[in-house]
């Protein structure tokens, strides 16, 4: 849940037959998220009451009724076209009346893709996308699909938080009431060291393996031609003094040497990191502004997505679609860091301290100093009741204590 400090869900027992309840829940997804949070329980009870006795699925008529009602609700609460375009394309702040809509939009699964498509639609004008050559067009569509979906996995939590603060948080001067969503400082989420390192090691491991496999088996590389090349297998090069794709030749030795060098430096770094961790892990300070938890689901999805992308890149190089290079560079970075990550995982497993964050391990290993005090982070908080009438949201100069303080 994005908004913090909300009251917990009602503890009602649902006597509805589980299959029917599941069917109702899935049809009710036609309604906006906020609407379901507020009225969903009440409505699903009514839908169950209206269903014929013994029904295990929702009938077509009832399902259609929910679909129509849900989309009508979405349509009713959607911002007008001009507000929506300004919000989507230029990140202009949404009017107060549509904050609830914006919060749903921001917390929605595809938010970042929506934002990106809204602001980067201009790339669709790219003539290559509409090229008559189907292979070229397919390549470009594939590239943009990866870029668009990839935006979902670039700092998702931070970008959502920024968007919530901009579009949804009450502005200075607005009245404070129970349930008002106000920007306040709060503890920062950090992944536990064990969970973060486990995911880091598997991610770096995948990237390293992809790099090594590509360096060992990729058939082609970019080569500099100094004279006209007349023949190739089915192709003819006539370019001179240019970089073209050609047989990998000695490039393979260079690639493998780069990877081996990275491992060597990585092992040296790992030795330093290990010494620092052993010396400093016992000297950490208390971190009141931090909540430690395992890697979030979104974090895991991010790691899996990028691992898959890099593995796909290596596969493209091995199968000769791409030239050797990128995955070697990525693999070298991974091999540089992998020994250190493994060493850190081994050391922290021995310490067994649940409140140790991955950030602390990185800080100690990279800087050789005790981690600094974590700073709180601003996010949206639902206000509790108890404020006298007329209290307004105050501006938040940097470094001020959280506002408003309870009387």
């Amino acid at each position, binding site marked *: 849940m994005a908004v913090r400090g909300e009251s917990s869900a009602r503890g009602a027992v649902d006597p509805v037959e589980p299959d029917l309840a599941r069917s109702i829940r899935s049809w009710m997804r036609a309604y906006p998220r906020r609407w379901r949070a507020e009225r969903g329980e009440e409505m699903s009870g009514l839908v169950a009451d209206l269903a014929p006795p013994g029904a295990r699925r929702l009938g077509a008529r009832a399902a259609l009724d929910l679909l*129509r*009602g849900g989309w009508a609700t979405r349509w009713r609460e959607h911002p007008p076209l001009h507000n929506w375009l300004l919000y989507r394309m230029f990140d202009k702040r949404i009017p107060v009346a549509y904050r609830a809509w914006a919060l749903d939009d921001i917390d929605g699964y595809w938010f970042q893709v929506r934002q990106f498509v809204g602001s980067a639609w201009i790339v669709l004008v790219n003539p290559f996308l509409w090229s008559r050559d189907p292979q070229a067009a397919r390549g470009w569509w594939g590239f943009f699909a990866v870029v668009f979906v990839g935006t979902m996995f670039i700092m998702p939590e931070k970008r959502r938080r920024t968007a919530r603060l901009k579009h949804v948080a009450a502005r200075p001067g607005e009245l404070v009431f129970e349930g008002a969503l106000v920007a306040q400082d709060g503890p920062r989420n950090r992944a536990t060291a064990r969970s973060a390192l486990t995911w880091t090691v598997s991610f770096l491991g995948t990237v390293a393996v992809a790099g090594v496999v590509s360096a060992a088996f990729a058939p082609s590389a970019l080569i500099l031609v100094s004279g006209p090349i007349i023949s190739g297998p089915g192709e003819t090069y006539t370019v001179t003094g240019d970089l073209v794709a050609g047989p990998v030749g000695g490039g393979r030795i260079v690639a493998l040497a780069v990877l081996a060098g990275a491992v060597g430096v990585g092992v040296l770094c790992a030795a330093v990191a290990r010494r620092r961790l052993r010396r400093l892990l016992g000297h950490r300070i208390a971190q009141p502004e931090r909540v430690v938890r395992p890697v979030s689901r979104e974090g895991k999805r991010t790691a899996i997505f990028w691992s898959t992308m890099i593995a796909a890149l290596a596969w493209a190089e091995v199968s000769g679609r791409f030239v050797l290079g990128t995955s070697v560079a990525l693999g070298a970075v991974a091999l540089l860091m992998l020994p250190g990550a493994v060493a850190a995982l081994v050391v922290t497993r021995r310490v067994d301290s649940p409140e140790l964050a991955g950030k602390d391990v990185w800080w100690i290993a990279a800087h050789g100093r005790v981690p600094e005090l974590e700073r709180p982070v601003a996010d949206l908080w639902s206000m509790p009741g108890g404020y006298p009438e007329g209290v307004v949201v105050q501006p938040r100069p940097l470094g001020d204590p959280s506002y408003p303080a309870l009387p």
Partner: protein
Amino acid sequence: MTEQAYLVLLSLADKPRHGYGIVQAVVTLSDGATRLGAGTLYGLLDRMSAAGLIEASGEEVVDGRLRRYYRLTDAGSAAATAETARLRALVRRARSAQGPSPVLGGA
């Protein structure tokens, strides 16, 4: 005002009701002709709350189901009364237009 909205207003005229209560009352009021689906009902409730015709009046949990009650506001009562008056006037005009006839129950 649509007929469905009018029926929902009428169903709340005597006492506050929850969603299922409204659906049943509307079936009775319309003599079985109108059976509101949940989506239709909540669409009406949303729009009528936004227009200030009805308001929520408490909730309870019965057999593990959350029941939220709705009641008419003063504006809602006035709207229902006005609609009834309009329909009565319409019936009167219809009768005078058609003359005494068995279809409208005679004069």
